[in-house]
Every structure is written in structure tokens, then in C-alpha cells.
């Protein structure tokens, strides 16, 4: 934050003598409005940090796959990255509000600051850097997921997911069974081949943190690795007509033994 504020000193400088940058920074922080902005800025930064660290993880369901874990990390990370920016923005705004003018006539004229080159440049560069961090992080994550999908394709369990108005069905071709519940073995990569028999649906196993649209006569593919035992909620995330809201089912991530038992009791064979 200080690098933004220090730039304001140039237009505040009313002395003929050119002070050193150090003196300028000291003078700047002696100003009451700057101090107040800093305090408010720190307060708001803290608010966003707390939001990122404690609130988001609480809101989101328990991560049951590598993808969901990565996604939660990104949510927390992005919040922390944006916290100082949001803090600065809200700090300046809060300072201005506490310095407001009351009454029915316009306030006295403020300083005629038309622009401040260094501030504009620093602001743009800093926001560019934050943007770059977000982009690089996102691309690396996408890359990791794509690599995992390729390298694990051989061992993966294939599930053919079909959406129709308004039910999901899951076909385990290798096991030779079909189900309306999504049962998955723990720690085994899974590939969902998703399609639709009518309109667009969107296959969303919530706790696995992945999602892909189901399109008629097209197969779309997603990959993940369930890494925690527990219940999965499967929902439709694309408005698909009358009973879209009710197009949901459940499933479970279970141990390999339990999964194999489930397969055999349903008339399938372990593969």
C-alpha cells in the first residue's frame, strides 16, 4: 500500500526545495488523512483476510476430490491476494466518508489535482501484476488437471453419465451395470463421459468440485480423483425445463471393497 500512497506526495509538495524520497515519504505519513486512510485500509484488509481464511472454507462443502481441494485453495488464495487491494480501495473510501461535508451548500474547493502520472502507472502495474498472478496460478492448475487426466486415463474407472429430462443415470460399462446413484471407489481416478438424450444439462457432483455440460449426441469428458469417503450430491446446473430443480440424485465415495461388493450385488463384475 505504501508504494501507492508515497506517490501522492509529489502533488502535495509545496516546498521549493526538492525533498529526498525518504523525506517525502515521512512528510506524507505525517498527514492526518494519510494516517487515517492507512488505519482504515489495514482494517478492511483484515476483514477480507478473515473472510478468505475462515469464512470461505466454512461455506464450501467438504472437499472430496483433488479438484475440489485445488478449487478451495484458489478461492482462499484469490481472496488473500485481493485483500490488500480491497483494503486500499475501502480505506480511501472510508477516509473520504469520515471527512464528509454537511449542509445545503457545496463544500469548499479541494486541491485541483488533475492527475498524477506515477500513481496511475503504479496502480496499473500493480493491478497488472495481481492479474498475472491470478492468470498464472489458474493456468498451472488447469495444466495439472489436464496432465492428471492424461496420465491416469489408463487406470481410471469410466462412468457414462446420461442426463435426460429430469434424471441422471450412470452406466459402468466395464463392470456391466447401470445405476441411478453415483457410486465411486476411493482414490481411484474416475472419468465421466457425459451426454444428454434431450436438452442441455450440466452434470455437477458437488463435493467433487467438477462440472461439465451434457449435450445431446455429444460426449463431454471430465476427470477427477475422489479422495475422501462420504456422500456426494449430484445436481443439474443448467436450466433444463420444468423439473430442473428436482434433477438431482446422490452417491457415495466408498472403499474399493465396498465398491466391488456393490458392483457384484447389482449383478456386475469387478473390473
Amino acid at each position, binding site marked *: 500500500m505504501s508504494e501507492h500512497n508515497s506517490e501522492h506526495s509529489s502533488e502535495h509538495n509545496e516546498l521549493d526545495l526538492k525533498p529526498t524520497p525518504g523525506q517525502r515519504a515521512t512528510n506524507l505519513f505525517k498527514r492526518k488523512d494519510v494516517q487515517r486512510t492507512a488505519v482504515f485500509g489495514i482494517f478492511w484488509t483484515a476483514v477480507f483476510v478473515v473472510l478468505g481464511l475462515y469464512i470461505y472454507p466454512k461455506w464450501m462443502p467438504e472437499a472430496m476430490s483433488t479438484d475440489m481441494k485445488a478449487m478451495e485453495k484458489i478461492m482462499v488464495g484469490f481472496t488473500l491476494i485481493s485483500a490488500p487491494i480491497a483494503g486500499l480501495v475501502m480505506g*480511501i473510501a472510508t477516509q473520504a466518508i469520515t471527512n464528509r461535508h454537511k449542509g445545503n451548500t457545496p463544500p469548499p474547493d*479541494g486541491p485541483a489535482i*488533475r492527475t498524477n502520472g506515477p500513481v496511475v502507472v503504479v496502480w496499473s502495474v500493480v493491478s497488472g501484476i495481481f492479474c498475472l498472478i491470478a492468470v498464472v496460478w489458474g493456468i498451472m492448475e488447469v495444466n495439472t488437471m489436464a496432465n492428471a487426466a492424461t496420465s491416469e486415463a489408463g487406470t481410471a474407472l469410466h462412468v457414462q453419465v446420461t442426463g435426460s429430462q429430469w434424471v441422471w443415470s450412470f452406466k459402468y460399462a466395464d463392470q456391466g451395470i447401470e445405476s441411478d446413484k453415483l457410486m465411486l471407489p476411493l482414490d481411484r481416478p474416475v472419468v465421466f463421459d457425459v451426454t444428454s438424450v434431450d436438452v442441455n444439462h450440466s452434470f455437477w457432483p458437488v463435493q467433487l468440485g467438477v462440472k*461439465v455440460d451434457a449435450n445431446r449426441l*455429444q460426449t463431454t469428458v471430465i476427470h477427477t480423483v475422489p479422495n475422501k469417503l462420504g456422500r456426494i450430491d449430484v445436481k443439474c446446473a443448467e436450466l433444463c425445463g420444468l423439473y430442473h*430443480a428436482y434433477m438431482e440424485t446422490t452417491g457415495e465415495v466408498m472403499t474399493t471393497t465396498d465398491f466391488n461388493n456393490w458392483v457384484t450385488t447389482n449383478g456386475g463384475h469387478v473390473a
Partner: protein
Amino acid sequence: MTTLQSTSSHSRPIPNPAKSLITKLHMGTGAVVGIIFAVGAYYALRPAADDPNFYNQQNKALLAAMLSWSVGFLIGIGAFIGPFRWLIGKDLTAEEQLYLAGDGQGIKRYFKYCTDHKVVGIQYLVGVMAMLAVGGSMAMMIRTSLAVPGGHFIAATIYNSLVGLHGITMIVAMIIVATGPFGNYIMPIMIGARDMAFPRLNALSWWVLFTAIPVLCSAWFLGGIPTGWTAYAPLSVQAGPGMNAFIATILIFAVSTAVAGMNITATVVAMRAKGMKWNRVPIFVIGATMSVALAIPAFPTFMLAMVQTATDRVFNTGFYDANVGGSGWLYAHLFWIMGHPEVYVILLPGIAILMEITPVFVRKPLFSYNAAVLGFAGIAGLSVLVWAHHMYISGWTPTLNGPFMVTTEMISVPTGLLFLVLLGTVWRGKPWMKLPMLGMFAVIWNFLIGGITGIYLSDVPADNYLHGSMYVTAHFHYTLMGAALTGAVAGLAYWFPKMTGRMLNERAGYISFWFVQIGFQILFLGMFIAGAEGQPRRVVSFAAMYKYQNMISTGGAYMVGIGFIVLLWAVIHSWRKGDIAPMNPWGAKTLEWTVPYPVPLENFDEAPVITSDPYGYGKGN
């Protein structure tokens, strides 16, 4: 319009334009001719009950009826008299032109095809408020239905229609909420013009839009729309007759925006006062022009998407039918190539209004005019390259998600410039906390939340989870409602004295402001939580685990509703009985505050000459 400008004085007695037809036409004659056209078209094309292609034929008859209504209304109100008279070699006389401009006709001119930009501005203002009221009432019904789990209040068919019609009503209203009323009423005065570049087209843009309103309303009587406002195919192709109303609305609205966008752009380019160089143009004019100019290339793709939906429904063309080689992805692309620029079409004027307001209320120059222009231009330029971030999870080409993530996140840089301009302007100032300025601070917060949540959604792995959830709904309401609508309301409070001659009731304004803004935070906080927890959007029923979040949301929604009812009361009451406004109540330096109320027909007795930009506030300026 050249004749209009050559009639030098607006105050001379009006010669009676003989018994010209134009004196006899108004909304009523438009409606009569429109209904005759519509009924005629429907009965000419309606299918027999045993027609094997009954549904195709019915769609054809309904679409023809709706479009004929629009054309018939325009004929009946006299929209084409000017071109027609020109064609037969009897161009309108100066007196007739003056009559068309509504000279001396009092309140009647608001119901006529009136070429005066101020009349068109008021028509847009009233129309927009009516649309927002209808769209807002639908939102209240949606939230009421979602107050408790299980969807007991409203049947699923009606609920889905509510979601879609709330969406399209609000999108249409928000596209014109700033550029319609203020772009037409205020902007020409701001740049020192006597009227718009094409006054007849200006009137046309409003009345074309007007004809879309009954068409959209007819969706309710034709069984509603099941698709949401995105109208994804193939769901829209299999939808019932109500879908025709949606298609016709978009076709009509696209014509209106094209006409209005071209007219506003031409006016700003060609009709600025002497000496108003590009770096002296008020920033609202820049923002509004970029917005409408962005709409010109964006909307035709939506129109095309709708034409193809219509032909799929009427002629079984199969553009979106995978069985015959079509694809729903084609629709999604066409839709979002419009859809993402469109959110910036909505946002830019809202922010530009705040940039116009802030220097006045802190008595400081706008901080870095160039950064503001760069910010608008950067957003407008990038916004046409980001559409497929709405399709990360559609599966069309996952390898292109990366590039679209890059372009999308790049938008945060020009957006940051807009924040910098607003914050730089208030920095070291003493903001005068009148209603418009309160709106500015509310937008800083709302747009900050909308922007940050937008960064999560632009990230592919995060969007894999959040796409299609209530989180998205909360996010875009923060940008479109929290930022753009709040900016437009701030603009209303700011320009109300110039547009109505009276001050907006401050007390009611403050009550409304706090109800709306606090309610808004509560409403969408609940929705953010429900979405992050995994509640999909557009659902009539939800699981019990989202109970409290939705209850909170509904409570907040009622607060917003109360706030807007208070605002509506304030507007109506102040318009009729408010305190008479002085010529320049805020002490602003833009040209619109140099003309009296009521603003004379051609705005300026003497054409103004501009020697500086309008932000010369502050010590030492």
C-alpha cells in the same frame, strides 16, 4: 433535421400545419393499427387444428402477429410519415417539422411520435421505471417462493417463467437505464447540441422499444418461457408458444438498440459544440457513447441467434439440432458474443455517471481524465474477446479455456483504472453527501465485491465448481444492480432537477437509499453462501440445508423492495409537488446546468463555445 435547426427561434407562434395527418396520430392510433395488423397476420397464418405441423404453423402465425403489431404500431403512430413524404416528393414543411418536435403541445407530446430529444428522454425514463417495477415485482415473487425450501408457493412452470422474464425484463431495462433517459435528455445539452443528429430516428428508437413491451408481456398469456433469459437451445426449440414472445421481443429490441446506438454515436461525433475537443467532452458522454457503440456490433449476434431459433421452430431448420448436424454450442456462442459485451454496455454508463457526479460533489477536477477514457476503452475492447468464459464447462473446447481465462482476467486492469479515477477524485476532498454522492460510495463497495467475485468466476478450476450456482447470480447482481443500477439512480437524483424542474425529495431519497443498499447486502450475502455451498441457480425448490441462507436472502429482498417503493413514491411526489429547483442546484460546470427549466425546444438561444473541460474545480484552477 436540417430544417429544425434552421428555424432559429422556438418562441414564435406556431403556424397550424394545415390539416396534416401528423396532427392526428398518437399512441392510440398506433395501437389500433398495430392490433389490426397483428390480428390480420394471425388469422391469415393460423393453422387448422388438424394441421400435421400444427406447432410449426402456430409459431409462424404468432411470430408474424407479434412482428406485424410492431410494424403496424409504428405506421399508426406516424413513424414513417417523414420518409414516405420524402419518397413521394413532398418533404415535410418547416411547420410540420416543428409540430413533430412537439412545440407547444404540453403533455400530449409524450404520447406522440415526438422528435424532441427531451421528450424522448422522459419517455425512456418513465418506460424504464415501469420495466424496473415489473422486473422487480417478479424478483419479489421469486424470492417469496424461495423463502422456504420445497417450492410450495409457485408452480414450477410459473417459477421458470418468472426467472426468465425477470431476467430479460431487467436486462432490457438495464441496457437503456442510463443511455435512454440521460443519454437522450441530458447528453445533447451536455455537448451543446440543439438536438440529436437524427431526431426522427431518436423517436423511432423509443417507439420501437415500446412495441416490444406488450410483446414481452404476452409471453405470460402464451404459457411463459421455460428457458431463463439465456434461452439456450435446444430447450428453446422445444419450448411452447410463449417462446415466440421472447424471440419477437429480442428481434424488436435489437432494432431499437441499433437505431439508438447509431444515433447517439453520430450525435457525439458530429454535433459537439464549437471548441469541445475530444479531451473536453464530459466523461459521461464518453462512457455512454462507448456503451452504445459497443452494443452496435454486439446485438446483431443475439438477433441472429433468435432468427435461427425462430427458423428452427417454424421451418425445422435444425441450426441447434444435433440430430441433423446442428449444435447447441452454436447458440451458446452467438448468445455470449452478445452477452458479455452486453454487461459492459450496462455497466459503463453507470460508472460514467458517477465520474460526472464525483467532481461536482467534492469540488475537485476529475482525477486523470485519460485514465478514465483508457479504462472505458480497455473494457469495451477486451469485452468482445471474453465471451467463452461463460462456456468453460460447456465442453465445446476445453483447451481454449486457458486463453479465455487470460482475456477475462485482463479486464481487471482497465476496471482498476475506473476505481482509480473515482478514488483519486475523492482523495483529499470533502465529499458533499447528497444522494448522488452516497450512490458513488455504495458503488465503490458493490463493484468491489462484484469485481473480486468475478475474478474467482473467471478462473477455470473455481468456475468448475461455481458455474451455474447461486454464487454466479449473486456476483452479477452485484455488478449489474449494485453498480450499474445504483449509478443510474445516482444519475436520476443528480439530473432530476434538470429533467423535472423540481428537487427530488431528499428525506425519502435517503430512506430509500439505506433500505435498498442494506437490503441488497443481506439479500446477496445469503445467495453467495448458498451458492458456495452448492445450491444451483434457477431452482424452484432447494434442499433444507440452504434454508437459512435463502430466508436471509428473502428478508433482504423485501428490504430492497420497500426501498424501491419509497424511491418510486419520492420520484412521483417530487415530480408533481417537489421544491422548485434552481437552475444549477449542485454548482456543476457542464452545459446542461446553463439552460433553464423547462429547457427550450432547441436548448440554446446561442450556440455555446467551449474553452476548457467541465472539471475546472478546485483551488488554483
